[in-house]
Structure formats: C-alpha cells, structure tokens
C-alpha cells in the first residue's frame, strides 16, 4: 500500500492543505492544560479543595512526591510543569497581574516582564531576603499608597542599587 498523504500533512488545518484532523497527543496536552489553568487561576470551590487535599498542592508538587500520585495528576505535572518552574510551553505562556499581592511571589513569578525577576537578576536574587515572599509581603500600605520595601542581606554596591531601579 502506498501512503499518499502523510499523517503530519493530514493534521494540518484545511487552509494549509491538510484535513484539519486533530493531533491527538497535542490536543490531549491542551485539554490537560485547561485543568492546570483552572487549578491555578480559580479562587476556590469544593472540587479544588478536594484535589488539594488529595494531592497536597495546586501547583503539582506534593509532600509524598509525584511517583505515588494518580496518572492524571502525573500527566498534569508532566505536561504543564510543577511548582514554580518557568520552563515548558505552559509556564512560558502564563503570567500574573498583581492586585493585592497576596498570591504572586515577588521574585519567582512572572508578573513584571516576560520572565521572573529571579531569572532576570539572579545576582540580586541571591542577596535578597525576600525569596519566596509574596509581593504584598514586601512593603506596606501607607495612607492608601503602596510603599515597596525590599530587604537585602547586605548593603548593595552602587552599581547594584542602580540595577534595582
């Protein structure tokens, strides 16, 4: 039997000469990503509480380790990454919009630029005492205005404080 059109071409959209057949592996990943998205983005709900009580945390990392989790949970972690990691297609495409600063981790999450402050300024990160802290924990509200107050291991050199600005 001769194969006349490769599966790769059949899976292209119709306008590009394919038949628009779904690439099931990628489509499955996209569907799994929706779970991950809802776990990370939605405020709460019973379904989420139940999942967190089973698996430990919404980000995918857990106290017992992934090895002992269900296939579904392990697939979620595999497709979308675990914890605070920035690698992978899913992690690269999510970011945060800061409101009250109660969820976003100052250094680790992507919220100011297209990558985290941690990976942009790794030197400053190593000097910071705010590692792992939420944005809202690094400063105070004074008469309705936000005052950012970062804490450092030592006084910064002149060139280092320039970078901060």
């Amino acid at each position, binding site marked *: 039997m*001769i194969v*006349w*059109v490769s599966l790769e*071409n059949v*899976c*292209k*959209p*119709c*306008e*590009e*000469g394919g*038949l628009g057949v*779904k*690439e099931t592996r*990628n*489509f499955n*990943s*996209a*569907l799994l*990503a*929706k779970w991950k*998205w809802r776990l*990370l*983005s939605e*405020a709460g709900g019973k379904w989420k509480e139940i999942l967190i009580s089973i698996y430990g945390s919404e980000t995918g990392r857990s106290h017992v380790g992934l090895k002992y989790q269900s296939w579904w949970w392990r697939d979620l972690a595999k497709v979308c990454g675990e914890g605070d990691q920035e690698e992978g*297609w*899913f992690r690269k*495409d*999510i*970011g*945060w*919009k*800061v*409101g*009250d*600063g*109660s*969820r*976003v981790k100052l250094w680790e999450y992507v919220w100011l630029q*297209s990558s985290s402050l941690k990976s942009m300024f790794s030197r400053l990160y190593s000097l910071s005492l705010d590692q792992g802290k939420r*944005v*809202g924990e690094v400063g105070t*509200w004074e008469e309705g205005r*936000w005052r950012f107050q970062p804490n450092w291991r030592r006084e910064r050199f002149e060139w280092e404080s320039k970078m901060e600005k």
Partner: protein
Amino acid sequence: MCQEIQDRLVWREDPKGAFSVKSAYQILTKRITIGSLDSAYGVLWQAKAMPKALITAWRVLLDRLSTNANLIRRGVPVDSQETSQHLFIDCAVAQRVWSGCYHWVGIVGVQSMEIRNHLENFYLIHLSSKQNQVWRGVWVVIIRSIWEQRNQVVFKGGVPDPKEILQNAQLLSWLWLKYKAIGFVYTFSYWILNPNKCILVVL
C-alpha cells in the same frame, strides 16, 4: 498594586488573558505563525460538492493522486509520464472539457494555466460569493469526472470522451444541488440548458 482586587493569572497568548484549549493547541502545534497559507485550499473547501469529489480535488492540489508520474516516483513501473497538470489541464481532452464547461455558461476563452490558479480563476463575475462556491463545485466534479474517465480508460480500455466527462460532471453537480441546495427544483435538462438561472437560486 491595588488592595481591592486579587492577583490574577493571565494567559499571555490571549489579549484578555483568558486561557483557551484552542490557543494551547495552536502553541503546541506551532500554528500561531501563519506560514504556508495557500488560498487555493480555502477556495477548494468552500466549494459545494460531494466529499468524494472534494477529496479527489484536494489530492490533485497536493499532487498526491496516483498519476503515472507519481507512481514512477514511488517506484511503480508504468510507462507514461502523465502528470496531474497534464491530465487535468494541459491535455487536449481536458482542454475540450474545460472549454465545453465555459461554453455551457456562455463564456469563451480558456487558457491553460497552473492547476491552483485554474481553480482560483474559476469564478463568474456576476455571481455572489455563495453562488461562486456552487460554481466552483462544478470545477471539483469535473476534476472527479476526468479522474474517473481516466481510470476507466487505463484499466478497462477505450478512448477518453470529453463530452462524456462533462456530462457526467453536470449530472454529479445537478444531483448534489438537487439534494443539498434549498429551492433548487430544476430538472436535469433545465440545468443543462440554463445553468446561470439555476445557480442564481442559491442565495
């Protein structure tokens, strides 16, 4: 910072920051950048014809039909170097089919051209875009009809007959319209005599 609203996750592919499975799938298949968009395919899939004929035409555009030239490329020993371009457009039989088809709707002058352009140029100016989708369905069934006759000649012998090819295509398109187009109540002979009037029924 704003005390009143909570931190919110945003999906950066989307202007509003909302996640969608569609955009995730597009990222994964890397289709976000429009690369190989070929207008001929868009035109083809909008054409009104039966799936069997559309698939044949699709394979013609891709040049993935088992023409002799393609069989030779795949190591099948056949004697002539028949290409899609020759079989469907350039060949004298095909030329007579196409000119017969143009003559049917009252136009003259057909030039030989590359197969994709041939499809894209197959429209009538006085028709709406919906009506031209019907008209391009005729293109699709002519392709199918040529292919069927070619197989007939190759496997059962005989000589190709342009008239028969066109008539078969006219029958296929009439059948399709009769069952699929609302308000198309014309008889086959009326379709043959007044194709322009019949197409206008499609709104």
